[in-house]
C-alpha cells in the first residue's frame, strides 16, 4: 500500500474525508457562536456551517442534550457511509476505530444494569458508533465469566477479555479496572495492526497511539491517588506501548502524588511542556485540556500527508473534539455563564 496503489481502493474515500474535514467548524464560526444569547441563536449560526439545517425538525425549546445527539448523529452518518464504501484493510481499520466506543458502551450497559436500570433506558445512551448486535443481551449475567460465555464471546472484542475474566462479581471498582484492561488490550492490538499497514500509516498511527497510551497511563496514575487501587494493579492497566513504556511506566507505578508524576513527565519533552502550561488555578488550562490540545495538533498533522489511513482516524477525533466544543459553548450559553465560554479547544 503505497502511493502507486493506494488510490485504486481508497482514493475516493480519501478525497471524501478531506472534504468532510474542510467542513469542520472554523475559528471565525466559534467567535460567532460565542456571541449567541440563546440556543436558538446558536442553531441559526450553525446553519451557516457544514451542519446546515440539522436542527430544523426539533421542537422549539432546544436543549443542549438534543444538540449533542444531533451533532453525534451527523458524525455517525458520515462514518457509516465511509465504512460501507471501504474494503479491506481500510474496513478493518475503521472497525478498530469503533472498538473504543464499543468498550465504552459495554461498560455503560454493565454499570447501568448494576444500578437496576432497564436495557431499554440504557440503549439510547450508548454511542451509536460502538453498537453491536448483542448489546441488548448484556443484562443477563452477574459475573464477567458468565457474561463472556453468554454474550461477549461473539463480539469482535472477545480477544480483549482474556486478561480480565474472573469469577468475581462485577462491582463499582471492578468496572473501571475492566474498562482500562479492555482498553489496554485494544490499544496494543490496534498498534500491532497499524504496523502491518505500511510505512506512512504505521509511522503516523504509531505516534498517535503512543500519545494515547501515554495519556492513559498518566491519567490512570493521577486518578488512582486516594483510591483503593494498589500499585501492582495500576501497573497492569498501562498499555504496553508508547514513549513511557517501559521505564516511564515503572516510574509512574512508584509515584505517590501529582508532583511525582510531573517529575516523570520531565524526561519527555512534549509532556513536560504540557505539565508546565497547565495548573489548577481557574485561569489556567487543566492538564486534560492540554492533552486535548496536543491531540488536536497531532490530528491536524495527518492531513499533511497523502495516501495513508491516519486521516480517517484524525477526522473522527477532530469531529469528536468539535462536538465537545459546541456542546461546551451551548452549555455556557444556556446557563448564561459567559466567563469560561472561551474554554473550548480551537481546531482550525
Amino acid at each position: 500500500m503505497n502511493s502507486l496503489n493506494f488510490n485504486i481502493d481508497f482514493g475516493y474515500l480519501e478525497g471524501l474525508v478531506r472534504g468532510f474535514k474542510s467542513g469542520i467548524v472554523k475559528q471565525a464560526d466559534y467567535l460567532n457562536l460565542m456571541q449567541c444569547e440563546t440556543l436558538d441563536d446558536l442553531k441559526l449560526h450553525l446553519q451557516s456551517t457544514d451542519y446546515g439545517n440539522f436542527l430544523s425538525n426539533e421542537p422549539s425549546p432546544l436543549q443542549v442534550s438534543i444538540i449533542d445527539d444531533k451533532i453525534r448523529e451527523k458524525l455517525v452518518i458520515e462514518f457509516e457511509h465511509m465504512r460501507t464504501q471501504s474494503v479491506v484493510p481500510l474496513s478493518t481499520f475503521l472497525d478498530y476505530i469503533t472498538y473504543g466506543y464499543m468498550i465504552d458502551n459495554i461498560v455503560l450497559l454493565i454499570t447501568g444494569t448494576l444500578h437496576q436500570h432497564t436495557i431499554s433506558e440504557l440503549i439510547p445512551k450508548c454511542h451509536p458508533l460502538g453498537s453491536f448486535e448483542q448489546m441488548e443481551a448484556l443484562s443477563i449475567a452477574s459475573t464477567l465469566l458468565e457474561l463472556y460465555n453468554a454474550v461477549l464471546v461473539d463480539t469482535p472484542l472477545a480477544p480483549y477479555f482474556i486478561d480480565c475474566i474472573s469469577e468475581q462479581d462485577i462491582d463499582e471498582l471492578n468496572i473501571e479496572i475492566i474498562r482500562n484492561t479492555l482498553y489496554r488490550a485494544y490499544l496494543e492490538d490496534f498498534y500491532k495492526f497499524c504496523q502491518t499497514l505500511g510505512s506512512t500509516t504505521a509511522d503516523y498511527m504509531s505516534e498517535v497511539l503512543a500519545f494515547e497510551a501515554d495519556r492513559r497511563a498518566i491519567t490512570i496514575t493521577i486518578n488512582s491517588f486516594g483510591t483503593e487501587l494498589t500499585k501492582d494493579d495500576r501497573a497492569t492497566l498501562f498499555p504496553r506501548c508508547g514513549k513511557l513504556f517501559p521505564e516511564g511506566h515503572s516510574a509512574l507505578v512508584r509515584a505517590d502524588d501529582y508532583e511525582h508524576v510531573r517529575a516523570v513527565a520531565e524526561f519527555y519533552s512534549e509532556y513536560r511542556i504540557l505539565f508546565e502550561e497547565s495548573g489548577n488555578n481557574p485561569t489556567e488550562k487543566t492538564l486534560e485540556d492540554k492533552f486535548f490540545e496536543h491531540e488536536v495538533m497531532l490530528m491536524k498533522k495527518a492531513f499533511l500527508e497523502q495516501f495513508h489511513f491516519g486521516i480517517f482516524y484524525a477526522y473522527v477525533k477532530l469531529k469528536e473534539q468539535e462536538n465537545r466544543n459546541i456542546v461546551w459553548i451551548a452549555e455556557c450559553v444556556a446557563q448564561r455563564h459567559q466567563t469560561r465560554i472561551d474554554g473550548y479547544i480551537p481546531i482550525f
Partner: protein
Amino acid sequence: MPSVLTPVYIVIAISVAAFVITSFYFNFTNQGYRYNIGWLLQDTSPFMWSNLGIGLGISLSVVGAAWGIFTTGSSILGGGVKAPRIRTKNLVSIIFCEAVAIYGIIMAIVISNGETAYHPGVWKEGEVYALNSQNRHAGFSMFGAGLTVGFSNLFCGVCVGIVGSGAALADAQNSSLFVKILIVEIFGSAIGLFGVIISILQVTHAKMGDKP
C-alpha cells in the same frame, strides 16, 4: 495488500531458473557452444525485434497513462463531493495523463512505418553483408525506440497521476494552489516528451529493405 511487483518477481524468478537449468544441462552434456549470443543476434529476425519494440512502446505508454488516470481520477471524484468546483478544472490533469498514451500511439505508427519487407534472394554478392547489417540495425533501432518511448511514458504517466491527485485534493481545500501544482505537472509531462524525441532520433536511422 500484496505488492504490485509480485507478478514481476515471479516472472523474473522463473526466467532465471530456466536459464540456470539449461546452462547447467548444456555444460554437463558438452554442448556449451550452444550458448551463442552472436547466433542469437544474427539469426533472429529483425522483424521480431521491431514488432516487439512497437508492442512494448504502445502498451507501456498505455499502462503509464492508465495508472495516472486512475490515480488522479479517484481523487477528483472524492474531492468533488464536498467541493464541486474542482471537477472541471482538474480534468486538465487527466488530459496530461492521456497525452502520454497519445505519444505512444504516435511513436508506434512512426516505428511501424519503417518496416519494409526485404528479399535476400535478389541481393547482389557484394551487398549481402551491407544489406544484412542494415536490416538488422533497423530491427534493433526500432526495438530500442519502442523501449525508450514505452518506459519513459510509463514513468511519466505515473508521475503526472500522483501529482494530479495531490493537485485535486489541494484545490479542494484552497483554490489558489491548483495553478502552482500544475507547474509541477508540466515538468512531469516534459519527461515523457524527452522519451518521444529520443525515440524519433533512434527511428530515423532505421532503414529496411533491398537497397543499401
